[in-house]
């Protein structure tokens, strides 16, 4: 079995209203000098295979087809 983590983040240039709101909330908690917050998503997966190359290819297909909306999001794949 292979464990993997997929991280999906907004592309540069895409406005992130949620990130802005979090930035404002941190400011109101007294954390100063925090900027450019971007909210993203993390997916932890277990793949029933020992073939790392296949796992990576499958994960890429999963990202392109479902886990990320590549109009607005980028993704990275990390195998444990």
């Amino acid at each position, binding site marked *: 079995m292979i464990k993997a983590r997929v991280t999906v983040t907004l592309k540069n240039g895409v*406005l992130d209203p*949620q990130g802005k709101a979090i930035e404002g909330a941190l400011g109101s908690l007294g954390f100063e000098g925090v900027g450019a917050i971007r909210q993203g998503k993390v997916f932890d997966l277990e793949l029933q295979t020992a073939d790392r190359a296949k796992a990576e290819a499958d994960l890429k297909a999963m990202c392109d087809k479902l886990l990320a909306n590549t109009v607005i999001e980028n993704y990275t794949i990390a195998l444990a």
Partner: protein
Amino acid sequence: MKSAVVQLPGLNRDRDMIAALTKISGTAPVTVWQTETDLPDVDLIVIPGGFSYGDYLRCGAIAARMPVMQAIKAKAEAGVKVLGVCNGFQILLEAGLLPGALMRNASLKFVCREVKLEVANAETDFTRAYEKGQIIRCPVAHHDGNFFADAETLATIEGNGQVVFRYAEGTNPNGSLNDIAGVMNAKGNVLGLMPHPENLIEAAHGGSDGRGLFASVLDVIAA
């Protein structure tokens, strides 16, 4: 004109849409469940609004991967007209039938109110009953209607007249780029919009500004 309304778990505006189509065309639409792949022979397929699959992952993302969407893609390629309203618009974008994406409203709030729409293109199968530049009233109710497309895509859809509706007179409720409320595909047979024209079609709704869209696409414009 025969029409069909798609039903998926979590869509809740299907009854309003069925009522609007029935009242305006005189014929009740066929309903199609998400697992169906053999679609009835109709002229118009409508994906109504709601919260399909609880808006999990991204609005419309799961619904867009259901079997019925492959069948709808094939129908759209064959020239059948497809209309997506609100969550239906989000589903069409996630399915790749329309360009761009819809993000969380800039205000981060769910907006439920009436806006004004400008008919940006009246030379479409969906808007022939209107005049270009006409301002109509229309209700909106959504949390993720903030239209985004990269600069190149935006220039393309603006240049091709694919922007069909814009929020008018400072009523943009969600931060959409270029005040975009509704876009169609390059071929002109698939339209998606965030506002709900099906909820403003008769006196009991307080107006009938939304009627023109259905009259256009159902081909029942009064002579």
